[in-house]
Every structure is written in C-alpha cells, then in structure tokens.
C-alpha cells in the first residue's frame, strides 16, 4: 500500500508542500528514492533504515519513496522524519498514518534532530490545516507562526505514536523569545546612538534616512566615524511587524540561516571582496538568497564604496530600485525580496584626506579623478542623502539622544508615510509633483535650480528628503524650512 506524509521546503521565500509517498512490495530488500533528491537526501535511506531498526521495524521488502513534486530539486536532511513515517505507514497496513506535516533529521538511534526549515513546515501546516511534527528546538522557532498545531517530538517512536494518536503530544516549548533582541547580532550592530559624541550633522542625516528610508552616502576621512554611524542605523528603524518579520525570517531560512523574527531589522555589511553570488544570491539547485536579500527590510551597508568592483555596484541598482531580485538557475527560478536601505561610506579620495582641514592629501590627481569616477553617475543618483562627516575636533564632545528616543520620531514619521501609501524613498517623479508643498518652498527650490545650486536630479532628491523632514516635524505641507534643510543635505555633486 501507499502511505503519504507531508513535508515542506522553501522555494525562494514561498513555502511549498512536499508530499512524501512510500510504497512497500515484494520481498527483495531494496530502498529507492525518487523526486530529484540530492546526495544528502539520498543518504536519508541509511538513517531511516537504522532508525526503523531501533524502532524494531526491520525492512525486508522493496521500498520506493517518492518526494513530490517530482521536478523540484530536494536537498538537506529535513525529510528524514517524513520518509520514516511514510515507510512505517506503508509497512503497517493496520495503522494508516493520518495526514501530518513532519520535518526533522533522524539520528541512527531514532532521535529526531533539528534542521533548517521550521518556518516552511509551520507555514505549510498552517495553510493546509495540518498538525506539524518536528523536534522541540524547531518547534520553538516555528512558534512565531500563529495558528499551527505544533507537536514537538524527540524520537521516531514517539513521533509515530503521537501521529497515530496512541500517545499524548508533549507540551510545546516556549517560543524563542521576542525579547532576545541581540541574540543573532554582533554587539556592534546593537550599538546605540547615545554612544556617539558630537556629529550633529551625521546624526540628523541618520534620523532623516531612517524616517524616509532614504539611501545614505557618508563621506569623510578615515577614522571620522562613518562606519560607527552607519552601524547604528538599523537601531533607528521601526521594529518589524509580525508579517514583515516572518517574511525576513523566511528569506534567512532560504539561506539556511535562522533569524529570530522578533529581532530588529537586519543589518548586513558584505565585504567589498564578496562574490557576485554572495551578494546577489545564487548557487546550484534552488538558488539561495544573497546579502541583498538578507538585508531585506533592513540595512545594507557598503563600507569603502569605491573599493567594490563596478560590475557588482551596477548589478545592485535595479534590484534595490525594484525591491526584489530574480535569480534563474537550472534547478529553479526564484524571486527573493530585496527591499533594503543602502548606507554607503566612502573616502573622498584614495588616501582619504582630500579636503581635510588639517591633513594633506597625498593622492595623485589622476588617482582622485579615477576614484571619483567609480562613484559617479547612476549609482550616486540613488543616494538621496549625501553627507560629509567631519573628523571630530574633540573626542569628548557631548553625547546625544539614544536610539530609542530617535526611533520614536522615526516611527511617527513612517506612520504618516504609510497613510500616503509608500515610503518617501520610493516616491516617483510624478508623485513628487503632486506633493503638498508651500508656495514659498516651491519658490526656494526654483531659485536653487535657476542658480545652478541644484540640478534636475538633485531637485527630485531634495523634494523627497524635504517630504521626510516635514514628516519628522509632523507637518502635512512641505514648508520652506524643510526644503532648505533638504538642500543642505543634497551633497556637493547635486
């Protein structure tokens, strides 16, 4: 007979049900696996056979297990439990296993071990209205998906008994705490704005960037604090909603990484030597997401922007604008979300001291021109805010507000944007023309364009930023003072 158990896999960020069907027949001892298993899935037969032996079930028949859909490549050890349960069902005609979703790796002794894929299983179980069997660690992770009957199981025997209703399900463990904010973050990413001394201009720029989701370019000499400031941006962003957090967790899960949905928006800082695939996503079989997608709904930090290969920078542009990236591979074509806020840091020249008040620049002229050229044009246009961070004169300047205080203002400003339907960063030219903008503010902008202080592109950027500044001060109309401040933050090459 044929027994069927469900399992789950993420295709991109879409949870997909995998039906695990097993058939036992004849008397030849064969174990066959179908459905595009990779090497790790193929080895499941050894683990399953051993675990079954521990449960006193010795297989002496021909077993065929099929993982459907047949054309979807499968990888990893998460299918072990479902395969074992399906085989048990196929062998025992008296006890048909009811429909369940099961995930988990099997040890040789029949213990169920945690793997990736807790979210996929929970989401499939929720959508199909099935109970979900999984090891306790994964149950704790999956607990953030509400409305699922999670059944933590420690061994194959226990799983089989619970599935058949012969044993009471053990209690669901505490979900992984939403409060453990810093669990998956290095201490640096958690750093607070209250540690920043002085830097009033950069502080203001960070607040505006956080409020409007604007891409931010920080430039300045080495050691002036660009990196330190950039790392604090994700702490200023509003906390993710439950849906957003799940979405982010799914992306991370697709990269085989667990991310606590309760934590703050992600902060990713790929090094400039990172490969195209590491940044954009890729790999064989089902492509896994890259840094761009891991930073979804968070911050992508590009330190030393000029050091990144230009083809990499070029390939960022379109996904960041579009908020998603589609990766096509032989195994599958998937689309990962990639709606992130870019913060980049750059030196003004290769040595870093061009325009410094005290130190002299040692770069050859051609070197400076080449360095600038790499940062010019279409890429630079994406940065609404460009701020020069000066080297602090004193290191003992006054400390400022904490991230929490700034975040409150950011949250309020974002609320106004949500009511209008989109982030200010995403305001297209057409909508900018319909902006509620005071007559005097309009005159000021016109004057700036006429005097050549603001270019056509700078005009749009100034208006977007001005809208955010108005949102921060709770104004419905963009006033002249907002436009003026935005113009001061437009950067030199406006």
């Amino acid at each position: 007979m044929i027994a069927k158990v469900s399992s789950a896999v993420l295709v991109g960020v879409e949870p997909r049900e995998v039906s695990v069907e097993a058939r036992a027949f004849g008397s030849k001892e064969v174990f066959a696996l179908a459905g595009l298993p990779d090497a790790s899935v193929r080895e499941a037969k050894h683990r399953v056979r051993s675990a079954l032996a521990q449960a006193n079930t010795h297989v002496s028949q021909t077993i065929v297990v099929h993982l459907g859909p047949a054309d979807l490549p499968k990888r990893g050890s998460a299918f072990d439990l479902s395969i074992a349960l399906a085989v048990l069902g196929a062998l025992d005609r008296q006890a048909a296993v009811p429909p369940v979703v099961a995930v988990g790796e099997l040890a040789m002794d029949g213990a169920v071990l945690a793997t990736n894929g807790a979210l996929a299983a929970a989401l499939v179980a929720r959508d199909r209205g099935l109970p979900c069997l999984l090891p306790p660690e994964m149950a704790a992770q999956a607990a953030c998906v509400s409305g699922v009957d999670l059944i933590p199981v420690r061994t194959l025997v226990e799983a089989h008994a619970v599935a058949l209703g012969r044993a009471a399900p053990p209690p669901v463990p505490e979900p992984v705490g939403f409060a453990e904010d810093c669990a998956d973050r290095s201490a640096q990413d958690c750093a607070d704005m209250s540690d920043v001394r002085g830097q009033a201009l950069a502080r203001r720029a960070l607040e505006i960037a956080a409020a409007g989701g604007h891409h931010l370019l920080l430039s300045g000499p080495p050691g002036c604090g660009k990196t330190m400031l950039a790392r604090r941006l994700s702490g200023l962003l509003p906390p993710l909603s439950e849906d957003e957090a799940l979405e982010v967790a799914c992306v991370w899960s697709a990269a085989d990484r667990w991310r606590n949905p309760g934590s703050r928006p992600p902060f990713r800082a790929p090094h400039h030597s990172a490969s195209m695939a590491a940044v954009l996503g890729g790999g064989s079989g089902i492509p896994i997401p890259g840094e761009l997608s891991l930073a979804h709904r968070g911050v992508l930090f590009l330190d030393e922007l000029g050091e990144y290969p230009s083809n990499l920078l070029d390939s960022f542009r379109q996904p960041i604008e579009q908020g998603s990236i589609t990766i096509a591979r032989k195994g599958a074509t998937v689309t990962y979300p990639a709606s992130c806020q870019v913060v980049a840091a750059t030196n003004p020249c290769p040595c870093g001291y061009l325009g410094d008040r005290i130190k002299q620049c040692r770069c050859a002229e051609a070197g400076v021109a080449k360095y600038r050229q790499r940062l010019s044009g279409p890429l630079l246009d994406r940065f609404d805010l460009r701020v020069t961070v000066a080297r602090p004169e004193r290191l003992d300047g006054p400390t400022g507000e904490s991230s929490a205080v700034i975040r409150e203002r950011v949250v309020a400003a974002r609320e106004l944007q949500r009511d209008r339907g989109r982030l200010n960063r995403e305001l297209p030219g057409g909508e900018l023309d319909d902006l509620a903008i005071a007559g005097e503010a309009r005159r000021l902008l016109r004057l700036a364009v006429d005097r050549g202080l603001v270019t056509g592109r700078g005009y749009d950027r100034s208006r977007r930023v001005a809208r955010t500044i108005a949102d921060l001060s709770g104004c419905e109309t963009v006033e002249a003072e907002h436009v003026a401040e935005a113009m001061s933050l437009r950067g030199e090459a406006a």
Partner: protein
Amino acid sequence: MNHDLVRLAHTGSNPDMLRRLVAESGWSGAVRRLRSSSKTSAAVKAGLDIDSEARLEHLSGIGVELIADGDDRYPPALSGLPDRPLWLFVRGRIPSAVGVAVVGSRRGTRYGLELARAFGSQIAGAGWPVISGLAAGIDTAAHSGAVDVGGDTMAVLGSGIDVWYPRRNRVLGEAILAGGGAVISEFPPGTTPDSWRFPARNRIISGLAGVVIVVEAAVRSGALITARLALEHGRSVMAVPGDLSRETSVGANLLIRDGAHPLTELHALIEELELVMGQAPATRLPQGGSDGDHESLLGLLGPISIPIDELAASAGVSIDRLLADLAHLELSGLVMVEGGAVRSCM
C-alpha cells in the same frame, strides 16, 4: 626685428647666453652669429629656421603677443632684473601696478587653500594684481580668490602659453583672461610643462611682485625657490607659519627662521603689505554681504571653513535650523558649504 625675435624665442637656448649676444649685436646680429657658429646645436638651428611670418600670424591668431625686453609694454617690474626674460608671450593685458605673488604647495591642505583664496581676494580687492603660477593647489586658490572679487591677476606659466597645466585649469585661465588679467609665459607655444622649466618661471613670478607670500611649502619646493629668487631680486618675502608636524609647513617656517616676515593675523594682511608696497591702489575692499536674518551666523564665519557641527555648537542653534539657514545663505552666495564645513564668501 620681430622676425628675429620670434626666431630666437623658438630656439630654447640659454637665456644668459642670448642676453649677452643680443646686448652685443642686437636681435638680428644674435640670429646671424648663432647661425654662423659651429657650436650651435641642431635644435637651436631648427628654431632659427622656422617660418617666422607664419608663426607671427599664428600667434596673433590665438591672441598672443610677443613682447621683447625694452618694449613699452614689457613689465617695468622686470626691466631692472639681471635675469629678466628676453621676451614674454602674453595673453590678456599686463597690469600696470606692481603685484603681490601668492605661491605654495601644489598639494595644499584645505586650510592652506582657503587661506590662499582669501589672500587672493583681499590683495586683488586692494587693487594689487595677484601673481602666481596657475599650478594646482595654492596657486589655483590664489588666482581664484582674485577672480572671485573681479580683481586683477596674472598667471605665469611654466609651459607654452597655449598649454594649460594642470589641464583642468584651462577654465580658471580663461576666467583670468575674461576678468581682464593676463596669462604670460617665456616659452614658445606648445612647450610641454617639464619640471625643470618651473624654476625659470618662478623667477618671473618673484620679479613681477613687490612681495612674495608663501603659503604652505615643503623644504624642496618651487615656492621656496621663488622665495629665494625674491630675495635675490630684492623683494620682500612673507610666510604663513604652519603646523610643525606637517611636511608642507616646514618650508614656510624655515623662511620665517631665515628672516621672512611672518603673517600672524588673518585680517592684517593689507596693512602689512602697505608697509612694504605703499598705499593700496584701490579702496575697493571686499564688501561683506549682509543678510538681515542671518547676521549673527555670518558673524561667526570667516574665510577659513568651520565644520557644520562646530558651527551649530558655537551658534547655539539646532542642526536642522542651521542647515536650513545655510541653504538660504548659500543661495544668496554669501557662504560656501563644502565637505561638511562652511566658510563665508567675501
């Protein structure tokens, strides 16, 4: 004589030797003697054999005059010098007043560049022509300062008069000419900017100036050569004292040790210059712009830029307010915001 002059100007031979020849035999005599001498090199002969007619036409076509020593238009400041150039290729109008040279490193610090620019504005505003070499760095800043206030300035090139070096200074050079200044060179058109020509150029800079001001210069630098030549020419040398730790301060500091006049106050430059040069020709001192709303903010700003953060602290205003004010002031052309710092544009 013009034809002989244009021939000699293209030989590129030793000016001291030519000066002697010309003094002994006149222009055409010098050409004859060079032609007949067996020691004359092929390069010099090529210069002597150029089509002088066509060359003169070409020069006037590109707006260049060739002015010989002794001509009425030859700068009087140079006439008395033993090593004066025998001729000058000139574009624009050579100012009649004696100038003030501002020279320094090609790699100035931001402070040095802003200071040189402010000096350029003040000197030109007082009616003295600003003399410099149109090189990168301090030279550029000094010329720009003079151009900013619409004053006289003269650039002495170390290359041919039609060769801009650095190339991007073509814009500045044209602005100097448009503003009624002059670009001059001793070298024939097309001469490349080779480093060995710069000391020769520097003697013209110091010769044209009554005072040479050195802003930021390393020990081995063109600016220091100019200062040394200035002493030989009997000109005064002033220097801006600098940070002991920086390479480009050492030269200027050494000059002060050796007796150059130290410039110690930002706003006393004109008085210091008047002690040497006499009454400034113009009282057209740069007028500080005014803006009723931002008077107190403008009061805090000078020609040397202040980081925005610091300005916010000293003005006691919030950063958002300050940024908005600065945008207004920048629009009125009263301040310049660059690299996170602000200076006044006066």
